[in-house]
């Protein structure tokens, strides 16, 4: 009788737990395999099912939150881009006026840089605005060549922050099929984040680890680019949220760079993830081969 009461007490406790919303609980099924054990087995299965459905609901809720945030990003970008276009156009017009003058080669080169960067800024605005509607322009691309061009200007910028950029020989990687503008945007975003991480760790102090490394591996299945910084890594709590729109650990910045980057890479059939630890963070960009 005592055993029977124990089993009924266990069932009651289990049902109370379910009523509280605790679906992770399990009750041991006895060896008799009688009706009471059958009820216990059924309650265990119901608990598991409720637990699984609750997890699924939370995932959907999380996705919905992200979609709502991305919609906000879209609205924000539309407004911001409208505000930015005018000053950029003014800079461009002024640069063109300057170029009409008889300039030294050095000033000429500088105005060309200004012009190029204005075009780039415009493209970034286009990309950001078109997050949800811009069609992909997939091309077959040699990453070694693309990085050589891309990092030519980035190196100078990083140099002014005392950060070195080391790029492995990527000439053996197979060509990939990507949207070049979007990939460029993602890479520059990751490099900028990596530089911030290094500067935040070492300040102005010289150090051999004031560097960012870019490497890659690839084969028939795809290509993965690794971008490593030697910062302090991403705190565990933050690391679970860094791809959420508007989440940031920085004092400045909107916290949309990584969420946009992830979306852009995934739209191209790739993936973006990372490893992090006290000695830095490595982002992995997986891309489909051509």
């Amino acid at each position, binding site marked *: 009788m005592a055993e029977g009461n124990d089993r009924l007490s266990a069932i009651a406790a289990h049902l109370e737990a379910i009523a509280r919303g605790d679906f992770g609980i399990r009750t041991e*099924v006895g*060896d008799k*395999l*009688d*009706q009471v*054990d*059958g*009820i216990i*087995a*059924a309650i*265990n*299965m*119901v608990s*598991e*099912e409720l637990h*699984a459905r609750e997890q699924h609901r939370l995932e959907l809720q999380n996705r919905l939150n992200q979609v709502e945030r991305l919609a906000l990003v879209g609205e924000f970008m539309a407004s911001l881009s409208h505000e930015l276009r005018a000053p950029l156009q003014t800079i461009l017009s002024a640069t063109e006026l300057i170029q009409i003058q008889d300039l030294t080669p050095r000033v000429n080169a500088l105005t060309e840089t200004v012009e190029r960067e204005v075009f780039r800024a415009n493209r970034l605005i286009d990309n950001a605005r078109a997050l949800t509607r811009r069609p992909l322009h997939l091309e077959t691309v040699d990453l070694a060549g693309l990085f050589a061009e891309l990092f030519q200007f980035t190196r100078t910028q990083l140099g002014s922050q005392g950060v070195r950029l080391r790029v492995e020989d990527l000439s053996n990687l197979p060509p990939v099929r990507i949207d070049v503008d979007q990939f460029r945007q993602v890479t520059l975003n990751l490099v900028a984040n990596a530089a911030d991480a290094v500067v935040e760790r070492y300040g102005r102090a010289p150090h051999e680890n004031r560097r960012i490394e870019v490497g890659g591996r690839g084969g028939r299945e795809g290509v993965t680019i690794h971008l490593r910084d030697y910062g302090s890594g991403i705190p565990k709590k933050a690391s679970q949220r860094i791809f959420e729109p508007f989440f940031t650990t920085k004092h400045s910045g909107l916290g949309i760079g990584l969420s946009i980057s992830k979306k852009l890479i995934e739209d191209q059939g790739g993936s973006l993830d990372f490893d992090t630890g006290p000695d830095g963070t490595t982002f992995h960009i997986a891309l489909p081969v051509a």
Partner: protein
Amino acid sequence: MGVANESRRCEVGEVGVRSDGILEYRYADGVEVDRAMASEMVALATELTVEPLPSLVHLGRVKGVRRDARVFFAESEENRAVTSRVALLTSSPVGTIVGNMFLGLNKPLFPTRLFTSEDKAIAWLKATTV
């Protein structure tokens, strides 16, 4: 598994193929089947057949089947590769409840029925066997 032509055994139980072309699964007493166990049993079946066969599953003294195992049985490619239809044979209240909940919650992708009579289970499997 007296009529089994060939069988395979593991800690979780035994799988055999009978002379009439029915796969037969028997689980060890007191086992609560989880995903790993489910995979192990289906892997044994894969050693016995290269095509989907009607299956007789003795729930016997099984104490339960975990959700991920039920999903695996109901939907996985691995199980579909060896299973054309399933007769669940129960002899205890626990087996009956486990079987009924499997049918209700998991909706397997192949015809599945619960029996308390082995003869009726075999007859149903054979009636639909080519």
